[in-house]
């Protein structure tokens, strides 16, 4: 069953898949700290507000994943954001996650690129795992 991106059910799928990803677990074994992935509002496809998923990451495991509050957004040290078109291209496999981040199409709106790239394999696997979720793209973008 496909999941609408950045919803509670999608976040739970993300957590489950991330915890099954052994490459991620190995590469992120010293990673401590939450990260937020955000999709920016796009009324043309019915997305009236920004939506974001908060992942609590620790030592290669995802302890919690949720569609989160403003407080989560403010407290997370790393926030990566993109517009609906970029996320769709990523979910469709037409963009590659790491190069999309480095090109600034996915924007690091909060956090430190040097720290993130110190975990380059973990970062790559983190994003690739999101791409593996059976994701239902909003109708307006199809």
């Amino acid at each position, binding site marked *: 069953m496909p999941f609408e991106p950045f919803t509670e059910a999608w976040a739970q799928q993300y957590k489950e898949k991330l915890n099954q990803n052994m490459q991620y677990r190995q590469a992120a074994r010293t990673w401590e700290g939450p990260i937020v992935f955000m999709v920016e509002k796009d009324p043309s496809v019915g997305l009236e507000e920004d939506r974001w998923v908060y992942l609590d990451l620790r030592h290669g495991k995802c302890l919690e994943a949720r569609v989160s509050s403003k407080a989560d957004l403010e407290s997370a040290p790393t926030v990566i954001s993109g517009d609906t078109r970029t996320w769709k291209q990523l979910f469709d496999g037409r963009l590659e996650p*790491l190069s999309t981040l480095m090109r600034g199409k996915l924007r690091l709106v909060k956090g430190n690129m*040097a720290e993130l790239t110190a975990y380059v394999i973990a970062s790559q696997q983190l994003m690739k795992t999101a791409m593996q979720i059976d994701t239902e793209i909003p109708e307006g973008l199809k």
Partner: protein
Amino acid sequence: MRVMQTTSTGLDHSILPMRLYHKAKKLGTWDPKDIDFSQDKKDWAAFNEVEKGMSLRMNAVFLGGEEAVTKDLLPLIQVIANEGRLEEEMYLTTFLWEEAKHVEVFRRMVDELGITGDLSIYHGDNYKKIFYEYLPEAMERLTRDPSPEAQAEASVTYNMIVEGMLAETGYYSTFKSYKRLGIMPGTVQAFEYLKRDESRHICYGVYLLSRLIAEHDHIWDVVNKRMELLLEPAIGLVNDLISEVEELPFGLDKNEMVQVAVKQFGSRMNVLERARDQSVDMIRQASEEEMGEAL
């Protein structure tokens, strides 16, 4: 029967590779033997252990890298020559000659400073993945597979990652820090020449990839996939270099080095993406600045 371009239609001096060729004749003629490293030798002797360590690691990376790109370029030149692209081949003759001089100047630096021993001990796993495996494999593949896909993978590896991301980031950082501190004047002089040469090389690489993308739309996907494969060891290599010590010497800034690498990668990918909507003629006539030549 073979057709001689110069006796029939002549040379097209307006296209980008030919303009790079003319620039190389003027700007690429510096002689590594003319650089005076006498003050560098004194500066090096005064370096503390952390400074010497960083300098050695950088030299080992640059020296091995320049040797690798000199050894590995020939198959690309052969492919371009076989396709009858005489102007591009003419530019590539300067390219290879310049790479040979880069090998010479880095070896001279090491010799003049009195550094002995096997510097390959500083080549870590990420370095070996790129310079011992991905680069020679991609370039050697061209000897049996001259397809646009193989050319694109070779050029991404050689021009975008090895030269465009790794060499440029390293040269920029080392040059800037030495220059700011007023030390290692011979090395600074060498880096001025190196950066100028590399800028033309990368410009040609962006041109080549843009032409391939304009000729075959699916090459954009080939480029993207190859970039994603190489970004992981490339970023890993940058991190290996800057993570060896808590605080980098010479006023080097870890975040700035990563930002330089990211910026170079991003701007060149944007140029390549634009090529999807451009004609081959537009790309052949593009300015050096449009193709990312900095100098």
